[in-house]
């Protein structure tokens, strides 16, 4: 049985219509004209317990709006949501006990208090049994290396330290589900990796269901096998990360370093993507062109000092999807 299920979820925001300029601003004070903006439209998906799903989309695609509806702080305009058997916006407090939340841009720790005190407060909010609390704190403290700054007020922590504190805070009460909203934003590579390892471990060992929204597709590649792509409020892909790569990542790039200078480069079966001095990037479709044949044709025509083949990363594929369109939504159950 799915732990999270949304059916035809829709959210429309209404705001007072505003013309540009000072006159517009003044007119808006008295205006009763509204404009509607659809943030989320026909979003349906379901998650099994223990899944990690990357929820991906450009700015303003409706990621945060969806997460807010799942956490119960936003009421859908229409459609249904069920999280662990509850309707979040109708049973906000009960739902809150099942979930943990980490926002990269916003801390849930208490600013003026030492980290330890924030944890103690969360213990009493979620009514975590003492022994469970101690065990979790010991484990997370070690995994996230919290020891050095447990007694430092949160406002004095670095971003990386604060984020590690936020992750521990979100997991202290053994939530069934965690929502991670841009959790690695602004972090350095080492801190990012520490946090990814932590999420992977909690998911593996405790079976926590994870929804991850992020701009950094490396987070997704490292953590999840399934992604949901959302653009302009609707789901445009829901399925395995691998399949996305196979179906949409059909292009490879051949990078040539030329040994001599040529006025013009043209190779049958490939398109010149870019050329910077003697480095040329040729794009080809792996379904219609064999690498062998292409390389042979290149070597017949030009003197080359180096050749490399570049696989498309998931970021390039997603960017292509957003820029070039994608046809009908490719929805498959995982």
């Amino acid at each position, binding site marked *: 049985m799915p732990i999270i299920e949304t059916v035809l979820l829709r959210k429309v925001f209404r705001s007072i219509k505003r013309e540009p300029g000072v006159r517009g601003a003044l007119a808006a004070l008295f205006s009763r004209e509204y404009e509607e903006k659809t943030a989320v439209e026909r979003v349906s998906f379901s998650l099994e317990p223990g899944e990690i799903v990357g929820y991906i989309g450009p700015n303003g695609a409706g990621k945060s709006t969806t997460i*807010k509806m799942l956490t119960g702080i936003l009421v859908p305009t229409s459609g249904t949501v069920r999280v662990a058997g509850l309707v979040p916006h109708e049973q906000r407090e009960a739902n809150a006990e099942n979930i943990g939340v980490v926002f990269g841009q*916003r801390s849930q720790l208490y600013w003026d208090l030492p980290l330890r005190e924030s944890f103690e407060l969360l213990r009493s909010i979620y009514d975590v049994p003492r022994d469970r609390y101690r065990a979790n704190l010991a484990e997370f403290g070690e995994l996230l290396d919290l020891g050095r700054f447990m007694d430092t007020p949160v406002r004095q922590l670095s971003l990386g330290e604060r984020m590690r504190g936020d992750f521990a805070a979100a997991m202290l009460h053994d939530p069934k589900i965690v929502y991670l909203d841009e959790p690695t934003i602004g972090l350095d590579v080492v801190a990012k990796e520490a946090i990814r390892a932590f999420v992977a471990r909690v998911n593996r060992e405790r079976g926590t269901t994870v929804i991850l929204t992020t701009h950094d597709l490396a987070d997704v590649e490292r953590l999840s096998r399934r992604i949901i792509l959302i653009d302009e409020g609707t789901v445009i892909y829901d399925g395995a990360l691998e399949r996305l790569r196979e179906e949409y990542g059909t292009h490879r790039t051949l990078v040539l370093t030329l040994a001599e200078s040529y006025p013009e480069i043209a190779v049958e079966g490939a398109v010149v993507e870019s050329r910077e001095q003697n480095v040329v990037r040729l794009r080809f479709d792996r379904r219609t062109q064999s690498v062998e044949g292409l390389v042979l044709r290149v070597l017949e025509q030009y003197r080359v000092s180096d050749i490399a083949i570049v696989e498309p990363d998931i970021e390039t594929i997603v960017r292509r999807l957003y820029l070039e369109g994608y046809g009908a939504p490719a929805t498959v159950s995982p």
Partner: protein
Amino acid sequence: MLAGRRRFRLEPYVEFAKRAIAREATYRFDVFTGLASFVIRVYLLRAVWVALYAHNAAPPGLPLHAIVTYSTIALLMGLLLDIDQTRALYERLNDGSIATDFMKPISVPLYFFADGTGEVLFHAALIVPGLLLALIFVHIDVPSAGVLAAFGVSFVLGYFVGFFLNFILNCTAFWTLEISAVQLIVTWLTDLLGGQLVPLVLFPAFLAPIMYALPFAAMFSTPLLIYVGAIGPDRYLEVMGVQAFWIVVLGGVATVLWRAGARRVVVQGG
């Protein structure tokens, strides 16, 4: 909220209050400057009243020692009543962190109440040193135990009037996000029409209907007049009834505003 009916636990709110006390204690400099400014105001107000009384006939029922007692006790009360204990609501609405409060299994208004009460309780500890310091400069009349008890009850009622007033002001941030102008006006009204600076009996008679049509007198004036004996035991029930009336009215307004504001957040996303 039918299936989600949950057992109420007081513990988190006690913890919120305790952490608020701990938080206030970290701002030690504020404590010292607050006390210093209190003592200076006590001294200056006394000087003003002494000068005024030297050149004017004392108003009936308010001899110099009574008015000095009145203004000193008013300033002591101000140590607690001037605190905007729900400022956190305004701040969390402004920086958007109210969203994380709604994601916790707590009653959010009760959280603000607990947090504010902790803050006020911390400052209540300043009453004793404040009073001792004040006694260096002024003499204060001490009424009978019965009057002191009535003053205590009336003060607590006044505290709730102030709490709901602040809560209502901070609730307007759901719509405007900017409340400093309104707050300034209310602070002035409280100072003047609440009887904190000058006893309301000294105001021109034509202002009386306005003063009693507004809730501010219920904060300062009522307990103070009980303390100095200008309101006798025969009128306790009546004046405290008026205070209770304001608590009900302001509490009702606060509830309506909170519900509308919270609804706005869940429908419009804040």
